[in-house]
């Protein structure tokens, strides 16, 4: 198959197909802590796994596997910032069956390993790289960041 559109070219059919893909994405959001994989996601919509991956990527800019891992890393970052969750427990809590794969993906996305992130987030958000501060500071600015910053 060429690199032509994986989604239907017929305009009338596209919204229904996109709605199916949205349901897959919502399912990832809802169940990202469960042991989900692309085959299971595809089964839920009676689609072949390869077809789902191609269409999902065309609609949302990344594959369902990539989106699932991004959601898991995002959730793990929130858990690690608390300071009372170990890296192993954070990996398990977000549904990752392989701590090694999780750690690799985390490092790719965040720029720090999970243990480095945990240690530096506990210390002070101002020491973290800019891309991390953006993530680390935004969700907590109403509560924790103000006290975590030097007076």
């Amino acid at each position: 198959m060429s690199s032509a559109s994986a989604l239907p070219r017929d305009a009338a059919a596209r919204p229904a197909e996109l709605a199916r893909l949205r349901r897959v994405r919502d399912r990832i959001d809802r169940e990202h802590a469960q042991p989900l994989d692309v085959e299971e996601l595809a089964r839920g919509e009676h689609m072949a796994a390869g077809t789902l991956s191609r269409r999902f990527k065309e609609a949302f800019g990344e594959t369902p596997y990539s989106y699932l891992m991004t959601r898991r890393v995002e959730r793990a970052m929130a858990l690690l910032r608390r300071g009372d969750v170990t890296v192993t427990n954070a990996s398990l809590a977000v549904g990752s069956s392989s701590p090694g794969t999780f750690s690799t993906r985390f490092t790719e996305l965040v720029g720090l390993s999970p243990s480095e992130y945990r240690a530096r987030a506990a210390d002070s958000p101002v020491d973290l790289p800019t891309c991390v501060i953006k993530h680390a500071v935004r969700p907590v600015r109403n509560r924790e960041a103000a006290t975590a910053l030097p007076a």
Partner: protein
Amino acid sequence: MDLSIQHTFIPHTDPEASLAFYRDALGFEVTNDVGSGTMRWITVGPPAGGSTIVLTPPSVDPGITDQERQTIAELMAKGAYAAIVLATPDVDAVFAAVEASGAEVVQEPADQPYGVRDCAFRDPAGAMVRIQQRS
């Protein structure tokens, strides 16, 4: 300035499906319902009053081109078009009731790191409906 929010607009693709969600699942009252077929404008809101939502047919402005109309339909289907945040004194009880109606769950009640407890549903046309604990 003394301003309140009177109406907000959320598009539907199937007026009866959206009505079932906002009236029957969320418990809103219908205060106006005009038009017919797919061209219906249905005003709904909490029984206690205040701001209302007008469920509206998408892209009816004649200044919108066919191509733009198609884009809007696709963005709605993707869930990237409309959104609203509601608040309630008991998010867990509301979640249970709305879930029992068969609505599409996006997120079960959860404490967010930024300090709110909330849950999320999709309305039948793809809009994100978040419901948070009223503080």
